[in-house]
Each structure stands twice: as C-alpha cells, then as structure tokens.
C-alpha cells in the first residue's frame, strides 16, 4: 500500500472516532502482590556454553531464519517468529522487553542464544507462557532447541471482550504479560515508549522502586460492534459493512508502596480507549498493511 493511501486511511480513522464517554474499565479482582504465584523463568542460555556450530537444517517450531533477506548486507540474517511467538537473539539489553519481538536481524557470526516465547491461552483466564531456549547459528541459518519451559500465569485483570492481562511474580518483580492481536504501543516503567508486534508483551515492574512502577499499553483488538456503524462520508467504508471492529484497548498495571503498606499495592486495569466507532475490521484489512489478527477464544 502506498504511503499516501495509508495516511488517508489514518486520517479517516481519526475522523471517524467518536467521543469516548463512559467506556468502562475493568479491574475486577486485582490480586494482591503476595498472592501472585512466583514462577521460575530460566536465564537465557550463556554464550560460553554455545556449540561451535549447528549443522544446516536444524529448526525450531515457529522460527524462520532467512539468510537471503539482506542481499546488500549478507553479513546479516533475519529471524522471524510465527504464530504469535516473540523472539530474542543474543543478550537482551536493559530496558528492552524480555518477551522479544516478531522479527529481528542478527549479524552473522558465532552461535548465539535464542529465546522464543509464546502466550498459550487455553481460554480467557487460563494461560501459560511457553519459553523455548535454543542456539542460533546465522552461518547455517539453523536453530537447535536446548530447553523448553512452561510458566503458569495468573490473571491480573479482566477486560472487555474476554481480554485478560496476566502476570507472575519473579522475586521482587511483577512480570506483566499483555496479549496482543495487533501492534501494542507501550510506555514502560522508565517512561520510554515502545512497540511490539508479536503475540504478547512481557515487561517487569520493580516493586521495590521508591517512586512506584507503572506500565501502560494500548493495542487494538477485534470485537463485535455494540451499535450500528455511524454514517461515513467515505464511500469505501460504506461499501464494506462490518459488524466487527478493531477497537483500541488500554492496559495499565502499576505497583507502589507507602510507608505503612506491608506489601506493594498492585493495580491492574483494562478498558476501551475509544468508543465503538473504532475502525471496522473489514475496512482496515483491505487498506492497511498489517498482520492478520487471530480472534481470541471466547468463553
């Protein structure tokens, strides 16, 4: 799609948004921090343990390696995660979400640790994090699985359209897992903004932080329209009647502690960030370059 076309769509989408009034946010049963189960997430593999090489042909499910993508720079290899998985290769720098991203590029060199995460949601409210640690060899475009871990998740907040935010405790950290059907924009506890386009976002909140810690995220999820679409001046939107919409949702999770509180106070909430006049799914998919979304299961 051309840039102009995308801009025009964005403008139309913006113009079609109605006033957000009374959009309820759900914060049912936010658990206390101490009641959130502790879970063990293995450290990433250490490069010193890496094999010298991995023969061509070894693969890990859901990870694609394309050594030909960077024709002008053959020293780089592209790694992509499929099926809502998120991938990280090499050490994860401070401030970068440990969940990884949908795709990354790696300078071809030695064998590096690779991690693939996937949020497995059996039904809203029942989920676990599947973590596969592996070795990646960019020279042979191959990946060898080393370990696989399943981390049980607990519900931090339930939102509209069966949307659930999960988490687990890791020492003094609250690890927050936010499902994504599309791109998620977020403001991390350091106040830095970022985006992720894989199946979930995982970020830790340091509950010992003196000033508190807060994570805000927003993304669009597919949901049924609650009301008839508003009349639009745009002929193409009228040509694509749809009873579903991509509606923006906001997630806020925070921890803070006053002097007299025995443990960090956990707050988690999920709510619509715009009213029902969001972007129609049909219209959006026709005109925007974006990954297809997988509808979440309903109860």
């Amino acid at each position, binding site marked *: 799609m051309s840039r102009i076309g995308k801009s025009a769509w964005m403008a139309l989408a913006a113009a079609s*948004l109605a006033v957000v009034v*009374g959009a*309820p946010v759900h*914060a049912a049963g936010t658990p206390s921090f101490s009641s959130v189960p502790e879970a063990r997430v293995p450290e990433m593999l250490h490069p010193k343990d890496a094999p010298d090489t991995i023969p061509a042909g070894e693969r890990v499910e859901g990870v694609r390696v394309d050594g030909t993508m960077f024709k002008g720079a053959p020293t780089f290899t592209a790694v992509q995660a499929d099926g809502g998985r998120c991938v990280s290769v090499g050490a994860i720098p401070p401030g970068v979400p440990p969940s990884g991203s949908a795709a990354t590029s790696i300078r071809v060199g030695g064998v590096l640790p690779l991690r693939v995460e996937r949020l497995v949601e059996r039904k809203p409210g029942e989920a676990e994090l599947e973590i596969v640690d592996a070795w990646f060899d960019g020279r042979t475009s191959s990946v060898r699985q080393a370990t696989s871990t399943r981390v049980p998740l607990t519900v931090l907040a339930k939102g509209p359209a069966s949307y659930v935010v999960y988490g687990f405790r890791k020492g003094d950290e609250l690890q927050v897992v936010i499902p994504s059907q599309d*791109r998620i924009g977020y403001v991390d506890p350091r*106040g830095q903004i970022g985006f992720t386009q894989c199946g979930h976002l995982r970020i830790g909140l340091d509950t010992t932080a003196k000033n508190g810690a807060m994570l805000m995220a927003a993304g669009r999820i597919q949901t049924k329209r609650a009301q008839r679409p508003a009349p639009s001046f745009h002929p193409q939107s009228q040509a694509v009647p749809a009873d579903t919409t991509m509606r923006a949702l*906001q997630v806020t999770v925070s921890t803070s502690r*006053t002097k007299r509180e025995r443990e960090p106070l956990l707050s988690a909430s999920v709510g619509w*960030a715009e009213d029902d006049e969001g972007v129609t799914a049909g219209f959006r998919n026709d005109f925007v370059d974006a990954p297809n979304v997988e509808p979440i299961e309903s109860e």
Partner: protein
Amino acid sequence: MRKSVAVIGLVAAATAGLAAGCGSTGRGGAEAKAPNVGERSCGRVHPGVGAKPLAGARQGGVVALAKAGGKTIAYVADEDDGTIHTVDVATGNELGTTQLGGTPSQLVVAADGRVVVALRDKAAIEVLEPEADPAQPLASRCTVPTPVEPVALATTPDDGTLLVTSGWGAALTAYDVASMGRTYEVPLPREPRSLVVSDDGKKAFVAHVVGSRMSVVDLAAKRVRPVDVGGIEEGGFRRPRIGLFGGGEEIERRACQGFALAKSTDLSGRIFAPQVLVDPGRAEERSEGYGSGGMNPPEVAAVAVVDEDTEQPIGESVSVKPDVRQMVGVARPRAACLLPRAAAMDPGSRSLFVSCLGIDTVIEYDAAAADPQHAERRRFTVAAGPTGLAVDPEGRRLVVWSQFDRTLQIAPLGAKDVAAVDAPAIVRVGLSRKAQTAATADLELGRKLFHASGDTRISSDGRACASCHPDGRDDALTWATPEGPRQTPMLAGRLAKTAPYGWTGRGDSVEAHLSETFGRLGGAGLARREIDALIAFATALRPPQAEMRDGTNDVLVQRGKAIFHSTQAGCGTCHHEEGAWTDHTAHDVSSRADADVAATFDTPSLRFVGGTAPYFHDGRYATLRSLLVDSDGKMGHTKHLAKEDLDALEAYMRSL
C-alpha cells in the same frame, strides 16, 4: 433588592468555590468580624435530635451526607443563593432549604449532628442544628469569626477539633467542636483550599491552588512543612529545542489548581490531590503563545498521591507520561480535567472520583494505581459546574452538585469491583432557586465561558480562562510569551478603572486585551453575546472580602500610608489612589528582562497586592518585602526606611 442579592451571590460563588492561583507568599490570617458574629452559644439546644453524619465522614465538602432516621440526606451548599438544600438521596426529592447568613463554601456534619458551614464572604463559620424533621430548615446557633475567606473544613478523628482553612486569609484555624472556641491558628502559604486530617489526627494536609505545593500542618507543634507536588516530564520537547537529531529534555512542571483532596481508610496512608501540572515555558525565551509551545501541552491533568507518613508524593503520580492511546492511532484525545474541583473516595471499589469544571465531567480513577491519572476507569458527563461530590458507601451512590446548572445528580456506584459497569443511569434533580434576572443570566453564561476548558473557541490546547485565573485571581506563574515573560495578574476586583490592560498597556479595553489573549491561546473566538457575557462576568468578579478589612493594625497601616504617599518614598507618584492605584501609564523602571521586547510596562494596580505574589511583569520578586527592598531606586525609594517603616509600608500595601 432580590436581583442584587442574586447577582452578588453568583459572582461571589464564581470567585469563591469555583476557580484561585500557583505562588509563594505566606502570611497569617487577617480576620474581620462580621456583624452578629460570635455573640451566641454554639451548643446544641436539642441534643440527639435530627440527622447524624455518615460513619467516618469528617471531611467537609460542598455536599455532605447524613443519616436522618432511615434516610440518607444530602446537605448541599448553594453558593449562588446562600442556602443549604436538604435532599433525600434515595428519591432525589428536595426536602427543604436553609437560608444562611452568607455565601457557603463548604459544610461538614459534626459528630453530634450540628452542621458547620464556612461562610466565605463573611469571614465566619455558621453553626446550625438539625430539627427532628429533615424537611425543616436547620436552626442557626451561632456564627464564629475566622480569618478572611474560610474555604474548607474538616474534623479530627476524635471529633473534638474543627479545622478551617481560609483562602485569602491564608491560615489554618482550629476550634473546639463543643464550644466552637478558637484554640489555635497556623499561617499558611497562599491560597489554601481543601484539607484532610491524618488517620492519627496529628497532621493536616492542605491543598493549595497555587505554589506547586501541599502543606502539612503538625497540629501539635503548630508548624507547617511544605510538600512539593510539582512534576517532571522526561523526554519533553519545547519548540526551541527541537533539533534534527535532538532528544527530549527534562521539564519541571509546576502544580496548580489544588482545590480538592481525598483520602480513604481503605487505602490507608494515601492522600489524593487532583491538580494540573503546568509548563509555563522559560522566562528567558520568547514563545508563540502562553507557554513554551512545541509538542508539550502547557497543562496536563494529574492526581498526586501523597504518602501520609513520609509526606512525599509517589513519584509516578507526578511524572508526566505520553498518552499511550495515541500510539495506536486513537487520535481524539480525551478531554483533560484541567479544572478539578472536588474529589471523593469510594472505599468499596477503591475508586477516586474527581469532578472537573469546564468539561463538566466526573472521572473515576483506580485509586490503587501508582498514577491514578493514567488508570481511568470511566467518566460520565454531568450538568455544568460540578463543584461538589460525596460518596454514600452504604447506598452505593455518588452525589454530584453542579453549581452552574444548579443540578444535583445521583449516580449508582455499581458493583464493588467496578466490573462491567457502563456509564451510570444518573438521576438529575434541579434544585430550587431564587428569582433570576437578565443580569444573572448573562453572568451565568459568562461564568460557564470563563471555566470552559477543552473549548477551541477559547484555546487550542484546552486551557480555560480559569486555568490561569483560578477563582478569577492569578496562578502565581510567569509565562513565556511572544513579548517576553509575563506574570499572570489577578482579575477579581482589578479590572474596573484600571485600563489600559496587559503588562505593556496595549489593551485599551478589556475586550481588546481579551482578543489578544484568545489569539495567543489559539482560540477561534466567541460570538458577540458571549464576549459581552464573559467580560460582564470578569469585571463583576468579586474580590476577596473587599468590604472587610483587618482593623487590628490600623496604626501601622496609617503609618505605612504616610510613607507610601511621601515624596521620599514616591510610591504614590505612579500608584494613584484615585486611579485605582495606577496612573494608567507605562514606565521604564529598569525591569526589562532578556526576553522582553519592550522596556516600559504599564503601572499595575495595587488592589489586593498583598495576596498576589510574585511581583513585577516577570515575577522576579517572590515577596512584597523583596519587591520593596530590591526595587529601591528603580521604582520609588525605600533604602532610607527603617525595618519598622518597611513593616508599616508593607502593612499598608496589604490593606489596599
């Protein structure tokens, strides 16, 4: 007669419970004794009869709830009519009204059922007693003098002490609840408003409209500690600093609009202060409007969460963050709560409710969040001018009083976990009122326009007139403007006979200056009738206690007056008494700042100068005394004055 009462009431209300200023002077409470004040016994004549307070309710408000038999009733302080309405919360029926001796700002129900009302314009509190039948008017028992302009009330956890904050009087005063005898008084910085008392009863937390602070008063030691509730914006972009490869910068934001406070025993140790964090821009740089411009909104809404024990805000709550919704293409921003006026906690759902003037909305926040401002649960529209809020935890109801539209709204709070609750079905009740006139209709329109935030006719960034002129006064800030730094002047009582307007005196009329102001704010402009109404309202803004003077230091004031008008000091050369303390002329007093385009400035009126620090067009003098001392030789002469003379001169100026 009735017409004039209604007009005065409306304007008093506008300057009272509605919009006051972000400053730094502190002074004791000037007190003026109104007629019939302090001459009767305040005790109960019929002990045990009538309504009692809701359990645990000790914070005053514009709305106070009580239990009368099986009924929950709301006492509503009506500033426009000077009355208390008594309303059955379950049915919305108005049971009766009680005429007061002045303009009420807040009321509180004491443990024995007496209703204490702060009379803003009378420098007094009135104590009333309920009858057995809540439909009967409350019986006035006594009035007790307070420092000028009592604005907020609270009782201590032992129900033994009543605390009163006075806005213009800048003081916290304590009274023995049983006798209503004054026990002590503590001077506060400028423009105090709401207060809450700590769970142990040892400290009072006081919000300030200006000065980027909250005050913590040690009730035993009678000492005040300031709490900085200003904020930090990391990665902000001011217009002059945007470069091709430039990063953001850390911007310090000043807190304003601290009218309301709330606390809850359920979230023990957390005090909530709805406010606005302001970036007025750098005084040393010119800008395109008022503030730095660029990508940073000049004002952002915030809810500071202050730890009751450490007396410090939780950092996240005063940290300005990007709007995450815009990152996923939600282009239309939510209207921000730039004029928060009342707050209440629902302990059941851990919700904080804040009423917002201008956008006429009540917003429900998750009070457990580190930054409630970014944990909004829902919002709902209410009638214009929501100045009062109260939560009925038993009946699961929220009661909202909208002064501008004189409407009481009763909304169900929904389930305790807030889940699956849409905008509530609100019961709206128009309460009785005194006869209206065309004059009050114009003033009412003007009042709404003055407080219209999020109105693109006024400004392009959501600011209202009341943003910089809370209660018609000043925000104690110095803004970057296209002509250099400009300190916000007070409006109430300072518009009449003080033309020309603006620091350079370019505005021949209020309308001309208003037009320039709208232009700088990026507002599209108002219709003719609206402009007239806005000007009518602004010029009718009643100054604080204009008719009442502190008579305790007359000798000192007279001495100061002589010094003021002396040839040696020369103050009266430009500040003509007969010209509303100005000569209506621009002068060069060697005050040109680096960013100023001109060196001459219109002589400002000195009306109410004592309560409007900081001083000069760029706010360079933090106190009246520093102005008097440090401007010597540039604007009058004070070097020759002894300390006692300076005291006298200052006392005189504070009396203007």
